[in-house]
């Protein structure tokens, strides 16, 4: 291959990648753009590339509609889910990486089956169960449900990180007089931080992005952001629609920050278990 054709090839590659990047970002960038406009400028024929900018939609949403309430709800639910998921998941993931018996194997297979179960199949029972116990529309109920539903994924991922930590490490600690739990707590967890952070990121995304369960198990002043924004789905009134647009952008901004900071961890999390078989 001559140098010239190679340079042409690289140019084509960049062109293709740029085209994809444009496609990948367009919906979000365009939404962000129109969120700063009034309705007449946001949806106009012909479309306007430049229009007066305004923060009106955001102030309406956050101040008048009290979107900060939904933000707080999301923060509570997400924080609770991540903390409990990681605590429970680390214990199980560690045990699954160290135990060689058949029971562990079956637990993993069952978790895999549950991983593929559509969440809506559990919803009717949740309604009946939680209504009978009178615990529907509670933060804790939603948190525990999210933890349980994400457990299969969490323990698989954490296990794949724990497997990479040599057994000799905990054995050495136990020879030195640690109990199994102390070895786990004092020796293994400190070297596990990268894995815990990566798994934590994914539990964060699962809880933060959840719509199906959040919109059905809690309501009114406990709604999370994605569930609250569902009101904009059928919005016909212009003001309501523009608030939805502003809400969509508000939900996305933390995620963009997350990608910029934790890109490496997200990539490693996605490939974990995939590359190593």
């Amino acid at each position, binding site marked *: 291959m001559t140098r010239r054709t190679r340079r042409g090839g690289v140019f084509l*590659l*960049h062109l*293709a*990648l740029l085209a994809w*990047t444009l*496609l*990948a970002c367009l*919906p*979000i960038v*365009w*939404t962000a753009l129109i969120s700063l406009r009034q309705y007449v400028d946001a*949806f106009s*024929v012909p*479309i306007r590339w430049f229009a007066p900018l305004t923060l009106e939609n955001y102030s309406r949403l956050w101040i008048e509609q009290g979107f900060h309430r939904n933000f707080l709800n999301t923060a509570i639910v997400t924080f609770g889910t991540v903390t409990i998921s990681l*605590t*429970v*998941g680390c*214990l*199980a993931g560690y*045990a699954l990486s*160290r135990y*060689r*018996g058949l*029971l*562990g194997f079956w*637990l993993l297979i069952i978790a895999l089956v549950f*991983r*593929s*179960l*559509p969440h*809506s*199949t*559990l919803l*009717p*029972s949740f*309604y*009946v*169960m939680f209504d009978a116990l009178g615990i529907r529309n509670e933060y804790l109920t939603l948190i525990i*449900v999210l933890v*349980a*539903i994400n*457990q*299969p994924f969490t323990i698989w991922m954490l296990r794949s990180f724990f497997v990479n930590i040599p057994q000799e490490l905990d054995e050495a600690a136990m020879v030195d007089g640690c109990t199994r739990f102390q070895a786990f707590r004092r020796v293994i967890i400190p070297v596990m931080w990268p894995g815990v952070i990566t798994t934590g990121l994914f539990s964060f995304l699962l809880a*933060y*992005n959840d*719509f*199906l369960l959040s919109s*059905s198990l809690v309501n009114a002043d406990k709604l999370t952001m994605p569930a609250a924004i569902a009101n*904009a789905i059928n919005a016909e009134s212009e003001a309501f629609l523009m608030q939805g*647009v502003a809400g*969509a952008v508000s*939900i*996305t901004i933390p995620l963009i920050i*997350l*990608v910029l900071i934790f*890109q490496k961890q997200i*990539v490693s999390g*996605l490939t974990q278990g*995939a*590359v190593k078989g």
Partner: protein
Amino acid sequence: MKIASFARFVAPSAALMLLLMALPLAMTFYLSVRNCALQMEMVTVSESTPFGTREVTTQRAVLGPDGRALTTCRFVGLDYFRTVLGLGSGASAASAAAPPEASGAGAVPDNAAQARQQRSTEFIGALRFTLLYTFATTPFVLLIGFVLALAVHHVSRRWQGPYISATLLPFIITPVVGALAIKWLFRDNGFVPYLLSQFGISMFWMAQAWSAQLLIILYGIWHVVPFAFIVLYAGLQSVPQDSLEAARIDGASAWQRLIYVTIPHLAPLFVFVTLIHLMDAYRVFEPVVVLTQGAFTTSVQVLTYYTLLDEQNPYKASAAAVLTTAGIAVLLLPLLIKTWKEHRRG
């Protein structure tokens, strides 16, 4: 590790999964063959109006000693399954489908009942679209993801980071928000219809079933391509360089190296991505809710969701849920068996 300490470590996680996944799933099966309805009694109430007193006979829920409405629950067999599948011979389905508590028997206006009747035959339709979505998106996800992975693999290192960041965005974005963003892009007076109108094409994307379905599929591809890309890109890093080198020395062209060395090496990853995507595509939910509002297209999850939300009927929803479970089992069984056999052989 000894089994006793294994059990202690695993207990919280296993208990959670047992209580909030296994038990509810079993309960869904139980609920799907039952129905509960309010106990109603006929009462005669005398109403005094300015024009005299008249007696009105009406239905009223029977209250128990604790002030709660009493319900009668009974076994209805497969009645709800027949309704959901649209097989219901009118009489048996109607008697079984006597709406439970919240709808309040007798209080349901006729058109609502009719709408319910219509949606009740939609499981097959929902399943058909779910499968269409699953099988229409999979090849594009794999192909586009692989092409992107190859492209990023071949550009210089300093460009890889930004491309990966930008690519991750559709994947991590909240699905409701992503679907809404696409909806606003394709909305009347929106960005895409305007661009198309420049070429003389004018259409309302959300107004017909086929274009709404196309949008859902486009959303699906847009949303999942990054996942395939990341996994395959990581796989490309691990293609053994000496095999590629050997192939080059033996005179293989770039295309041949791709076909005979790279792709076989990545085969397990293609299988992995396909499997994960099959599971996730089967639960397609947010884009269907957002882009069609349940109007012409439903997916199996959406069907259960609306049965529960609009009709407040957990028994009928359970029947839909059981069928959903059966669907995913049928879909994944061949793959699981294959993996299992390979696992045992290997």
